């Protein structure tokens, strides 16, 4: 690992230790476990650990957006439809309350059983989904509601109708809408952060990732199929492009890692929700008193500086 990257990582870790994770600790009183997680993050994840993240991020029992929403937000009211063409069940939006404050919520939604998976299109949204998200973001901006965005998608849906309805443009305009918001925004990758379909709703002031979530430019299978010419080499691809939370933190792509219950979020939805709620509330608290213009300027500056040059 290059030296300056290591320094940056340590710097971020100390910030993280002071903020996001300790907030969880204050609530849970499980400092010891969190310290172990910090140690793990500090240690370079092995190829095996990266692949384990890929498996856990896609685990069929992992909590999905609505599992968290129902546990974290009071009085959740779902908002439907893009006001133009349809209602995309792969991306849910709504209003709810977090610690007594109304927030707007957008998030990808996968399905639990075969029937729901089909309805939800496996969490792969159409342009209609992203247009619905834009509508709810603008609503949040109008009324001063902070925005919480939960990311969990293999990617935007690659289909004929999706293309005809303008998939690329919808994803671009969803990001642009987030760049314009004057309210605090927090995104958390809670499972799969698959490519453009994920970043569409992740241009936020604070981008968090759950410990076992993944965030990547392409699926491991897709990358393997193109670069190795064999989708079976997905493990090698994942090890090469490093979609795990620790690497994303190191590269400056995310701002914090949200701890999961021992063994992964799939084992204990309530505990996972409690840890996520604490991290979300903490991030929103940090952003609460920042004036609109500063919030937007800092958000843009953060994404403006993404990337590594020689």
């Amino acid at each position: 690992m290059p030296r300056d990257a290591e320094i940056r990582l340590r710097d971020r870790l100390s910030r993280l230790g002071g903020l996001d994770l300790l907030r969880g600790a204050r609530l849970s009183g499980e400092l010891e476990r969190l310290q172990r997680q910090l140690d793990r993050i500090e240690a370079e994840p092995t190829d095996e650990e990266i692949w384990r993240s890929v498996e856990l991020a896609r685990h069929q029992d992992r909590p999905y957006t609505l599992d968290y929403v129902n546990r974290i937000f009071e009085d959740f009211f779902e908002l439907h439809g893009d006001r133009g063409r349809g209602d995309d069940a792969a991306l849910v939006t709504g209003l709810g309350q977090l610690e007594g404050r109304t927030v707007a919520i957008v998030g990808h939604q996968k399905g639990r059983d075969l029937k729901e998976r089909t309805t939800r299109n496996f969490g792969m949204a159409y342009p209609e989904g992203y247009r619905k998200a834009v509508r709810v973001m603008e609503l949040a901006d109008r009324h001063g509601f902070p925005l919480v965005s939960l990311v969990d998608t293999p990617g935007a849906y690659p289909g004929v109708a999706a293309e005809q309805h303008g998939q690329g443009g919808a994803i671009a305009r969803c990001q642009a809408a987030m760049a314009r918001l004057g309210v605090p925004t927090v995104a958390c990758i809670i499972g799969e952060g698959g490519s453009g379909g994920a970043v569409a709703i992740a241009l936020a002031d604070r981008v968090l990732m759950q410990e076992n979530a993944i965030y990547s430019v392409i699926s491991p299978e897709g990358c393997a199929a193109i670069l190795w010419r064999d989708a079976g080499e997905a493990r090698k691809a994942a090890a090469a492009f490093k979609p795990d939370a620790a690497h994303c933190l190191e590269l400056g792509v995310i701002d914090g890692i949200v701890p999961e219950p021992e063994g992964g979020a799939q084992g204990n939805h309530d505990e996972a929700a409690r840890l996520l709620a604490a991290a979300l509330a903490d991030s929103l608290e940090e952003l609460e008193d920042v004036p609109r213009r500063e919030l937007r300027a800092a958000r843009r500056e953060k994404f403006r500086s993404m990337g590594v040059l020689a």
Partner: protein
Amino acid sequence: MARIDVSIEHKHAPPEPPAKKHPNTCPGCGSHYRDDELEAALRVCRQCGYHFPVKARERIGQLVDPMSFEEQAEDLRSADPLEFFDLRAYKERLAEAELATGLGDAMVIGSATIETQPCELAVMDFSFMGGSMGSVTGEKFARACEHAAEAGVPLVSVSASGGARMQEGILALMQLPKTVVAVEELHEARCALISVLAHPTTGGLLASFASLGDVLLAEPGALMSFAGPRVVAQTTREKLPDDFGLAESNLRFGHVDAIVPRPELRMTLARLLRLFGSD
């Protein structure tokens, strides 16, 4: 025991792949051109109108007033933060691409005039690693937006790219929001983005700045889709329409403002620059 091997593979061997066509042979009608003929024709087939790919510097030459182009940020080069290695090292691919194209990355930016109208240009080159967008391309585009805003002139982008550069992993994906916020700042400075989509403009490009132009122009026959036809066919097993993702179908569905044949592009851009520039 003696074994008799019967060699029958040749019966089932896949048919010989068709001999690779010369790059100057038109895939549309089979007409063949000398390089200077093709260059003089702006790389458009005189028989059938097929648009051959154009490299970044040649494209700039086609569009701007002679000697007016001043390149910026040409010394930017990609780092290899992931130390990415697939079948070959990313560093090696980069070095090879630079040798083959004479470019530092898949985008060339700079200031110029088109029919005396000042503007900023950001032109992509598909021959540099499939025009893929990594940190350098994202940075160059963002700088082009900033230069345009500073000078108070419109930005003309010409995209030709397969999407984000996988070898830069998540940082390549981050070039989407990066270029999106750059366009937002450009627009707040009340400068226009005129986005020209050449073949192909797919994936991360269509999901970021290329779609955010105040005006979107496409070249005839250009593929512009978020997911490529092969991915769509494999994932969904849908039957793809013959014009799937092509500029012509995108015009019909309302995703571009116009399809502009290459010989009219310079003139069209000049018209738009005049319309946007007359305060």
